[in-house]
């Protein structure tokens, strides 16, 4: 019974709104744009931040990345024809971090060397990554063929190497290439596997790159040493770097920040110059989340203003409607309608208006991001909570902005209302 009554009331509301189709339509339009823009704006914000967060997540939120950095040089050095710089992380640093900081789960030492690699007729410039098997646990990527480096490779100082998907394609390596040898500089390495890479864009560096070739760290050290010689425009530049990177995995996510501080403190103690950089993906993640929140608030408020305008439109129309239907209100009151029944009647009309506006707005709010994605290649995500939010807001707008006109209608003196022309 309660159901059929609500249904009847809503039908009556729609009937009353149909008296002025154009007017009601225009009012609905105000809500459509309001709700549509709320959803669209939130979806753009969500899309942008989701992308950023996805990239940061690729770095591993439990990880800390320490990278060797060439310190700013003093002037005297640049005059010399042969320059020699010693910087970066030491094997000792890696051991100290692993052994003395209890919150550290494991560490991965990394040595990076740029060398050309040859396979048959083909060649490409590779970034040789000398590392331990732990790398493949921390930077978990899909193995496409073969296997990853093992503890035995390290023990036996095996000339084993892993190519990336990209490298394999450039060197025309396939499943069948496993077991064949790649020449890197003067040395030959057996291809033991092909692995996928996940590189992020937008200024964020993942530990892995497309041009990587992974070999055991001790092999890299033995073959290539710690000295890198680079010739540039008549000058010779020598760099002595033991480790280029150390990846640190922290036991639990809530210890990441304190661990980063401990590492910083330790390195500052042992390094005279600041020749390293500590980056914490989790901190970036938190920052991105904070940015996202601000972004959503700003976009949301802009859209909220258009909802407000829509709401004011509704109120305006309802006030006009109440004036126009003053006599009807008088009739209903004379017949015996209570004040709250009059309020209910007009509230239903505004809620119907704003809800219809809200529903159409949702459709538009879902379509706009889709168009943006197709045309501007911008990622957008329409979340279900933004739709619920928009629907909730549109119903609330109906109630809030409809209440005043409705109460005004109910407070009319029945006798005066009946006499109204």
């Amino acid at each position, binding site marked *: 019974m309660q159901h059929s009554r609500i249904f*009847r009331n809503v039908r009556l509301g729609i009937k009353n709104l149909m008296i002025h189709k154009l007017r009601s339509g225009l009012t609905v339009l105000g809500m459509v744009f309001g709700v549509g823009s709320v959803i669209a704006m939130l979806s753009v914000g969500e899309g942008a931040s989701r992308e950023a967060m996805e990239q940061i997540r690729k770095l591993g939120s439990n990880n800390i990345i320490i990278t060797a950095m060439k310190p700013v040089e003093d002037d005297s050095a640049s005059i010399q024809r042969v320059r020699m710089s010693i910087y970066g992380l030491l094997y000792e640093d890696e051991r100290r971090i692993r052994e003395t900081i209890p919150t550290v789960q494991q560490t991965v030492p990394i040595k990076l060397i740029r060398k050309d690699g040859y396979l048959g007729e083909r060649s490409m410039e590779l970034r040789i990554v000398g590392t331990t098997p732990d790398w493949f646990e921390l930077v978990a990527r899909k193995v496409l063929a073969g296997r990853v480096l093992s503890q035995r490779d390290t023990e036996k100082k095996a000339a084993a190497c892993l190519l990336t998907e990209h490298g394999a394609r450039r060197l025309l390596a396939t499943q069948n290439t496993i077991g064949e040898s790649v020449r890197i500089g003067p040395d030959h390495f057996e291809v033991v596997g092909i692995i996928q890479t996940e590189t992020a864009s937008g200024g964020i560096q993942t530990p892995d790159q497309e041009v990587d070739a992974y070999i055991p760290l001790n092999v890299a050290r033995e073959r290539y040493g710690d000295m890198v010689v680079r010739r540039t425009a008549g000058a010779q530049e020598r760099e002595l770097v033991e480790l280029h990177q150390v990846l640190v995995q922290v036991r639990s996510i809530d210890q990441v920040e304190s661990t980063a501080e401990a590492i910083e403190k330790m390195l500052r103690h042992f390094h005279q110059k600041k020749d390293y950089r500590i980056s914490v993906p989790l901190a970036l993640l938190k920052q991105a989340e904070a940015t996202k929140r601000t972004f959503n608030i700003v976009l949301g408020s802009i859209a909220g203003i258009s909802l407000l305008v829509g709401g004011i439109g509704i109120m305006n129309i309802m006030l006009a409607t109440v004036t126009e239907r003053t006599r009807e209100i008088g009739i209903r009151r004379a017949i*015996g309608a*209570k004040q709250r*029944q009059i309020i209910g009647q007009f509230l239903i009309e505004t809620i119907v208006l704003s809800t219809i506006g809200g529903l159409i707005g949702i459709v538009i709010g879902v379509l706009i991001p889709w168009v943006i994605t197709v045309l501007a290649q911008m990622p957008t995500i329409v979340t279900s909570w933004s739709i619920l939010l928009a629907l909730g807001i549109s119903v609330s707008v109906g109630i809030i902005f409809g209440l005043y006109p409705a109460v005004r209608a109910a407070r009319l003196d029945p006798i005066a209302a009946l006499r109204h022309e």
Partner: protein
Amino acid sequence: MASQTAQSLVVLEDVHKIYAMGTQQVRALGGVSLSIDTGSFWAIMGPSGSGKSTMLNLLGCLDRPTSGHYILNGQDVALLDDDKLSELRLRQLGFIFQSFNLIPQLTVQENIELPLYYLGWEARPSAERARELAELVGLADRFYHRPMELSGGEQQRVAVARSLANDPVVLLADEPTGNLDTVTGRQIMELLAELNNKQGKTILMVTHEPDIATYATHHLHLRDGRIDRWEKTS
């Protein structure tokens, strides 16, 4: 007097109605006392501004007296709040207006059903009752029409049907023929007279036309907000 009060449907005791217009006060009714029995048909008459409409509005519980008592069916109206007054109008009273006052966007059926809607009737019995009433006033063939499509006389018939929907104790009519020509006006009056005769409805009607007043059983003459005289005519 006491025994008369017990059986009277409507009792007015020294009723005053004073409208405050800024600093000025307008005394629309100045001490009206009257008893009306069930089944009577009263025509309230008097010159313009004598307080006829004011009295009818009070009798119709659309307003409360400034002082004095109005006892309707044993209940003192002066003591009721807005919700209770609405309830009283809904269950005990029916209104017929000079300008018909139908709701334009509703059909004949829906207009007649309006009191039943507020009484909480279900759709089906409500529609049945509306049809019976439409037949009673001779408008069964106009059931789904809108007021705009009806003549004045037909609209007033719909209004009569609507006023009867809740089976009221008292019917109130303020110049029900005021907007109708003589012939149509008579038809409406015959309808009211029939309701009074056959169903014993108590009717309180304002009019300033003597030949309309002839349908009533009692005449009440107002002058300057007071009862000038009243008489039983049949």
